[in-house]
C-alpha cells in the first residue's frame, strides 16, 4: 500500500464535493490531494460543476468511449452464429447436389444394377476376345452392359446370322456381336429395362460402333461389317486436309447442314460427329480462308476431306505513291499582277446599268417637268447584296420608289474589293427620269 499511490475514485470526489465527508475525512482527502496534483487539478475542475451532473457525465462518457465487454462478446457470438449458418447451408446444398447427379452416371448406374440382376452365364470365348481389345473407359462400361445383354440374349434362342465374307476370326466375333439384332436385345431388355431402354440402345450402339472402329483400324476387310453397323449407328469420323499441301487442318468446323450440330477438327485434322438416325444429312466443312466443302458423310471412318484455298482471298495490297501536291497559297488566281481593288459596281458595268435605267426611267409626256432626278444611296454588303436604298435628294416619293424598284430589278452588284477582299460599300446612283423621245447620257 505504501508503494502504490492510493487511487481516489470519483465516488470519493463526489462525497467530498457534496459535503458528505467528515472534517477528518476531508483533511485526509485534502492531504492526498497535496500529494497528487492530478487529483488536485481535477478537483478544481469539479468544483465548477454540480455534483449530480458530474456523475452522469462521467457515466455517459465512459459508455461512449469504452464499449462494454458485453458488446464485444455479442459480436463474437454473432460472428460464430453466422459462420455456423453458412456452414450448415453449404452442407445442405452439397447434399442436394449429390442427389441430382449427372444423368449419364445415373442411367449407367441403373443399367448396371439391372444388368446385374441377369443370371450369370458362363462366358464364351467371343465375349472374352471383345474384352481384350483396348478401349476407352466408357466403351468398356458400355461393353460390360452389352456383354451381359449378349449373354442373356444367348439364353433366348435367336438365329445368329453370319454374313461376313472375310474368314478372320476377329471379324467373325465382331459380326456375331453386330448381328445381334437390336430388336432382340430390346425385346429382352424391355422386360427388365423398361425405363432405360433408349439410353441403353444408345450405349449399345456406341459400343458396337466403337468396337467396329477399333476393328476397322486393324482389319481392312471389316468394311462390310462397319457398313452393317452404320445402319444402326451414326458416328461420322473423318479427317480434313488442305488440298494444296495435304497437311491436316485443325480447327475446321464440320457442321450438319441446316443444323447447329457440329464438331471441330482436332490438331491432327480428325473429327467426329454424331448424326441422327437414318437421316441423309450433308456435312459442311468450313475454315477461314478455305472454300467450304459439302459432303455426304461416308460412314466409314475414312471421310477424307480436302479443302481448297478460297478464291475470294484478299488480293495483295499494293501501295502506290503519287508524289506530293502543292498547296495553292493565296485566295484568287489573278490575271493581273496588281491586287484586286475596285469599287462596287453593277454586274456588266455602269454603262449598261445606266443604259438600263434610262430605258426604264421614263416620264410621261404630259409631265410638267422636263426631267426628274432621283439620287439614290445604295448600301452594298460584302456579298454584293443591296442592303439599303435611301433617298438622297428628297425627291418625290413616287419617283423615289420607282427608281428604287428599277435598281432592285436591275443587274446584281459586285461588292467593293480592297486588296482582294470584299468589303461593304456605299454607292451613289443618279436616276434621271426623262421623257421618252430623248436618249440620256450616263453620268
Amino acid at each position: 500500500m505504501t508503494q502504490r499511490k492510493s487511487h481516489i475514485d470519483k465516488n470519493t470526489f463526489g462525497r467530498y464535493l457534496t459535503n458528505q465527508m467528515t472534517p477528518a475525512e476531508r483533511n485526509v482527502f485534502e492531504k492526498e490531494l497535496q500529494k497528487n496534483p492530478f487529483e488536485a487539478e481535477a478537483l478544481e475542475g469539479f468544483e465548477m460543476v454540480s455534483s449530480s451532473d458530474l456523475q452522469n457525465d462521467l457515466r455517459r462518457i465512459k459508455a461512449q468511449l469504452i464499449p462494454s465487454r458485453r458488446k464485444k462478446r455479442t459480436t463474437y457470438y454473432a460472428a460464430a452464429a453466422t459462420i455456423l449458418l453458412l456452414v450448415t447451408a453449404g452442407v445442405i446444398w452439397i447434399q442436394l447436389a449429390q442427389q441430382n447427379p449427372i444423368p449419364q452416371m445415373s442411367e449407367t448406374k441403373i443399367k448396371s444394377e439391372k444388368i446385374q440382376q441377369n443370371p450369370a452365364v458362363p462366358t464364351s470365348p467371343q465375349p472374352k476376345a471383345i474384352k481384350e481389345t483396348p478401349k476407352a473407359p466408357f466403351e468398356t462400361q458400355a461393353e460390360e452392359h452389352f456383354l451381359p445383354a449378349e449373354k442373356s440374349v444367348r439364353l433366348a434362342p435367336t438365329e445368329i446370322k453370319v454374313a461376313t465374307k472375310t474368314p478372320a476370326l476377329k471379324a467373325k466375333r465382331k459380326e456375331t456381336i453386330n448381328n445381334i439384332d437390336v430388336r432382340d436385345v430390346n425385346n429382352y431388355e424391355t422386360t427388365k429395362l423398361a425405363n432405360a431402354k433408349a439410353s441403353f440402345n444408345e450405349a449399345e450402339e456406341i459400343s458396337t460402333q466403337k468396337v467396329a472402329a477399333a476393328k476397322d483400324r486393324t482389319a481392312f476387310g471389316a468394311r462390310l461389317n462397319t457398313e452393317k453397323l452404320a445402319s444402326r449407328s451414326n458416328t461420322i469420323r473423318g479427317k480434313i486436309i488442305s488440298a494444296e499441301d495435304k497437311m491436316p487442318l485443325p480447327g475446321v468446323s464440320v457442321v450438319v447442314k441446316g443444323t447447329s450440330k457440329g464438331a471441330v477438327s482436332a490438331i491432327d485434322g480428325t473429327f467426329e460427329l454424331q448424326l441422327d438416325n437414318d437421316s441423309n444429312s450433308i456435312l459442311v466443312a468450313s475454315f477461314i480462308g478455305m472454300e467450304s466443302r459439302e459432303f455426304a458423310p461416308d460412314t466409314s471412318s475414312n471421310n477424307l476431306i480436302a479443302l481448297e484455298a478460297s478464291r475470294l482471298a484478299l488480293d495483295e495490297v499494293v501501295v502506290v505513291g503519287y508524289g506530293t501536291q502543292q498547296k495553292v497559297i493565296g485566295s484568287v488566281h489573278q490575271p493581273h499582277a496588281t491586287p484586286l481593288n475596285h469599287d462596287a459596281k453593277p454586274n456588266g458595268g455602269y454603262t449598261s446599268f445606266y443604259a438600263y435605267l434610262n430605258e426604264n426611267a421614263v416620264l410621261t409626256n404630259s409631265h410638267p417637268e422636263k426631267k426628274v432626278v432621283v439620287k439614290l444611296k445604295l448600301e452594298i454588303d460584302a456579298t454584293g447584296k443591296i442592303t439599303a436604298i435611301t433617298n438622297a435628294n428628297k425627291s418625290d416619293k413616287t419617283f423615289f420608289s420607282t427608281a428604287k424598284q428599277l435598281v432592285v430589278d436591275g443587274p446584281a452588284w459586285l461588292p467593293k474589293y480592297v486588296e482582294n477582299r470584299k468589303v461593304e460599300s456605299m454607292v451613289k446612283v443618279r436616276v434621271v427620269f426623262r421623257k421618252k423621245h430623248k436618249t440620256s447620257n450616263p453620268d
Partner: protein
Amino acid sequence: MYLIPKSRNKKRLSDQELLSKYLKKQDFDVLGELYSRYMHLVYGISLKYFKNTEQAKDAVINIYEKIQSSIHNHEVKNFKSWLYVVSKNHCLMELRKKSVPRLRSSSEEELAGFVENTADVHPIDEEQNAEIEKALADCIKKLKTEQKRCIRMFYYDNKCYRTISQELKLEEKKVKSFIQNGKRNLKICLERKR
C-alpha cells in the same frame, strides 16, 4: 485506508500490469479499463481549463485517442503521471489555439513543477521520518504567521480546509494558498539546512 476502494473486480490488475498487457496484445479493452480508472481526473482537469462540460467531455475523448497513438511512442513508467501530463498539455494546447496569450505563462513551468516524481514530493507530505521531522519543526517556526498556523492546523491537527477557514476566518482559497506558500518556504528552509 478507506480511500483505496475495495476492488469490485477480483481481476483487478495494477496499472503497470494493465499497461504491459495492452502493449503486448493491443487489446483496446485493456486500455479502456486503464483509462477508465483515471477518466474522472481527466474530466476534472478538462473542466478546470475549459470551464464548460461539453468541451471537457470532448477533451476526455480526444485525450483517449491521443493516448492510444502516443502510448506506443513513449516509454511510460507511471501511467497516471504520464496521463496527467498528456491531459494537461492537451487542454493547454486547445486553449492556446483559441485565445493565444492567456495561459502561456502557467504552462511550462507548472508542468515541470507538477510532474509527479518521488524526488519532488515535499518532505512534509512524505512519510514521517525523525530527522526530517525535527528540521521541519524548526522551519515551521520561521514561517510567517498565517502560513504557520495553516500548516500547523492542516498537517498537525489534521483539519480540513473548511475547518481552518472557519477558525481563522479566512476564505478556503486563502487557506490553500497559505498552505502552498508555507510549503514552498519550508522547502527552501530545509534545503538550506542540508
